[in-house]
């Protein structure tokens, strides 16, 4: 695979922590330690800056695009304990909501640094999950004119690093109730996966009866901080796949076949360096992995159920050993 690489002149003054393409793949949002969020229009190999959003007061860790049926919305989370939701209005981007974890009445900041944001599948409405460094996960739901926050306290001890939603049609729950539609339009059960500093990957389900989030699975496998989790888009067979990566330099693929309800871990690979990100392709069958060694590799499951490396980015040297475990 010979790929065209273009360098984006972001103009960020410090390290870039996240870069996300929107639903249509035409816009790129980046965020940086320099407290700014930038939005680029990407066309082929050209890119133009269309917005430079500076309202955060600390390094911005992550950005997330909402489904476009809710308009052009971008959420960003920051070291300043805030989540800001931005909306494009005409050609201008502006802040439409700010969620702080700190107590607005008191002068002290009770909340914690927000590490990760992720929008729910649009079927659940306009819902945003935020993972915070104190280990809690906040779920913000847009109601008529306001945002309601619900909290999973102490989802992970020490801290929660990443959150990702299950696709709305995902199955593979322990009780099989995750199947969408069911022909009768039963709405899918919202689920999310979180990865934390306690080395666990956990799955949470919104309990329909109580309206509370309950822990559904607690998956052990990593031996260090889990840095990123990504629930694969679900098309095809009724099984759910989650990728998680960790400071322990490993990537684990968790597969739930939807019948037994058990999450089977499979180690993708042990890399040379800390793995910071995992990201699925839209069809959910290719996993991109990016590590601290500035390399990106693509992985695909072959027909024997083995994950094989398709390619490495041209940035680094190919890994000396690509063990497939």
């Amino acid at each position: 695979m010979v790929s065209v690489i273009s360098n984006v002149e972001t103009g960020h003054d410090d390290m870039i922590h996240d870069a996300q393409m929107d639903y249509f793949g035409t816009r790129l949002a980046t965020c940086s330690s320099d407290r700014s969020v930038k939005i680029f229009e990407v066309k082929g190999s050209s890119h133009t800056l269309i917005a430079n959003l500076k309202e955060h007061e600390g390094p911005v860790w992550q950005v997330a695009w909402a489904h476009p049926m809710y308009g052009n919305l971008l959420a960003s989370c920051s070291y300043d304990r805030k989540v800001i939701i931005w909306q494009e209005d005409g050609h201008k981007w502006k802040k439409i909501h700010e969620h702080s974890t700190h107590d607005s009445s008191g002068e002290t900041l009770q909340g914690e640094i927000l590490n990760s944001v992720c929008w729910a599948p649009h079927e659940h409405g306009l819902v945003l999950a935020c993972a915070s460094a104190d280990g809690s996960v906040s779920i913000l739901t847009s109601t008529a004119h306001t945002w309601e926050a619900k909290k999973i306290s102490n989802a992970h001890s020490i801290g929660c690093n990443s959150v990702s939603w299950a696709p709305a049609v995902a199955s593979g729950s322990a009780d099989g109730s995750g199947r969408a539609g069911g022909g009768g339009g039963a709405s899918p059960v919202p689920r999310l996966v979180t990865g934390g500093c306690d080395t666990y990957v956990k799955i949470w389900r919104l309990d329909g009866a109580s309206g509370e989030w309950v822990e559904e699975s607690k998956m052990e496998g990593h031996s260090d901080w889990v840095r990123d989790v990504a629930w694969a888009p679900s098309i095809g067979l009724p099984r759910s796949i989650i990728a998680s990566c960790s400071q322990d330099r490993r990537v684990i693929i968790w597969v739930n076949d939807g019948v037994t309800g058990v999450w089977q871990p499979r180690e993708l690979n042990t890399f040379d360096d800390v793995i910071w990100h995992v990201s699925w392709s839209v069809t959910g069958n290719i996993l991109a992995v990016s590590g601290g060694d500035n390399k990106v590799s693509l992985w695909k499951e072959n027909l024997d159920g083995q994950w094989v490396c398709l390619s490495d980015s041209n940035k680094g040297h190919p890994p000396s050993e690509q063990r497939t475990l």
Partner: protein
Amino acid sequence: MMRTVKVTQDVPANALALDADDTQVVIAGRHVFKIFVLEEDGFVERANLRAGKHLNLNFSCNDVVWNPVEDSVLATASTNGAVVTWNLNKSTRSKLDCVFNDHSRTVQKVSFHPTEAHLLISGSLDGFMKLFDLRRREATQTYTSNAESVRDLQFNPHHSVHFCAVSESGNVQLWDMRRPDRVEKQFTAHGGPIFALDWHPEVKTWIATAGRDKTIKVWDLNENPTVCNTIQTIASVGRVKWRPNTKYHIASSALLWDCSINVWDIRRPYIPLAAFNEHKNLTTGICWRSDPSSLLSVGKDCTLIHHAFQDASRPMEEVNPAALDVSVLGSISNAARCKDESEPVGSLAKLMPVFRRTASYSDHSGPVLSSLQLVSPTEDGPISSHHLVQSARQYLLTGRSLAEICEHNAAVAKQLSRHQVALTWQMIQMLYVGASGGGDHPPTTRDDPMLLPDTNPDTETRTARHFSGGDGGGDTSGGGGFSAEECDTETDDTDNHDMKLTNIASGLSINQDFFFGDGEIGQIPFDYEHLNNTDTSQDWTLPNEAFEPRHDILTRSAVPPQVFSSKCLSGEMQDNGGGESGRGGGASGYVMEAPSLLSEVRAVRIPGWDCGQLVVEMLIHYATQGDVQMAVTCIIVLGKKLKGLLDADQTEHWFLSYIDLLQRFQLWNVSNQVIQLAAGLPSVQQLNQQSTVVGVQCGRCNYSLGRNSLLCRKEGKDVNITPHSPSAAVCQLVAPCATVWCTDCLRGVRAARTVATCTTSRTGWPPTGHVRRDVATSVNTLNAALYGATQAILVRSRIFTSRPSSASVV
């Protein structure tokens, strides 16, 4: 080395100070004034200075300092404006030595002269600074800051006749203490009040200032003071202290919100190098011991804490240095830290991960920049969307005969070098229509809803197993076809009689497992007329022996004879046999020469077995491989023929996934066609209706409107707002019809333009912009939408409401 320890009081302290040799610490507040000795494993209270008969406001301290020369002398700044000195050597219970009531308002800060033990300066909110001579027990000089409240002041440790003061107006003043008549230098440092100041202990011309504007600034006090560095913090800064023995590190604590103490590298102005998070409430005072790994602090949580630097959290090291995303178009955005050349690379880095880690961030000088790369996929790359988009654009879904559709789609796939997909289309054509000449057949062939719906389950499962097993060797991702060798090997090593899809496709050469043997022929009322008139030209012979081993199976597969009767067209024998004879050639030739394959199997007819299950298995296979397009397209094309074989939930899932994909690629027309063709999937078809009612937002104030209300309540309620200009019709009036446009699909534009004209002319808003997913789908089905329950359409942020009755739709 001392660990992180804390001692809790009943009341909070405002300030703390260390004695000259760092063994004792004094904390002072409104209701506390104590001295602790720093022991190896904690604090030991040595004295409570809040003693005596008259605990007046002189004991209420804002600041405390320890005389750097005389170990027994302390000074405090009181909230009532008094400056008080204390002598620990006094024999009385109260150690109060001297009270100076020279200030009229709260004294914020006191500072001892670094070397002259009897000199003390104070800064007060009354706008004056006073120099006290402790020997003469009086204020000897007064410096005025032009009625600006002084928040902090400090002697220059390097040139001690000078001191620096900062004020609430944002000014920094440099004074020569011998010249109270005029300020030596003055400049505006911050946009708001400055709360803190600290001279650099080593670099003689540097001071750090910090204030309400949430920044810490490092100034070089040359002839013209200049900012060297600006650190952005998240809250008003209350205290700053340089970290000893490290040129670039400074600790800060906040006045608001942030309870933690941050240590910054001034060259990395956005992320703290280290953070001490022990305080549960705001930190009021910080102080380094002369050791850079040892920090003392007091806070509103009533604690005095000794922080060991190794226990601090390291935000800079924990941050994510890489970004990664795979876009829908298959491009990968990846940001990574620009490598520092000094970092160990290659084998050294691999061998010594620990070394590399310490060398990475914390000791890195200056901001760490990232480079962001966009990797666009090549057309044949594994995550390229090229195939999907092109196929979606060019595939035929309906409108022609099945044979034509299959042929067309196969050609499309072939053109895109997707040989396997092309073969699949050809196979479907053969399975359901027959060979390329499908058009010649009576329509009953194609319209036959299901061949052999109740065929032998044994056969069915076998078929399914064979198929799914057979594709084990296929590389679907590569998009390449099977080579002849692959086929051969596959066939050869199939001890479980695995067969490739393509084997089946290549003329149904399924001589091992499928059987139209003579034993069966006897039972079937077979039309020998047809048999003869099509196949006399072909020079093949059917070796009867070949079928004999399967006789026992035949008897088991009690196919009801009537099923095979009239509806089964002739040619089964020929098909079977044709495949048999053509197998040798087909295996070698069908990949490169699909037309020749077709000609070879020209006589192929609908198989006499139920291929529906096989096709379903194939669709599942494709979907599993991420090619949901194939699955959905086949289902649409085959329509009723797969009825009853598909799992409704799964089909719906595929449709929804595919529609989502199409919408991501902004293929609105295709997506709508798919929605419309989703027969038997009401929840999919409903998408048209659902997506039209998205929500209404006031185009002026972005206030979301209720589903039934077309008035913007927010603006309406606001009495201060004068009636809007004409464009405010959106806010105040009910717009008469919908404005919808779509630059992507002509049909949508046409339909919408009619509607759009009247609204835009009313409101004067040009219909610029592009309709995204939700609206576009509604546009395409505007008829349904407008006459449905639709009331509102969201067009990005510019919203107009629709009244179906008044809209005229073309």
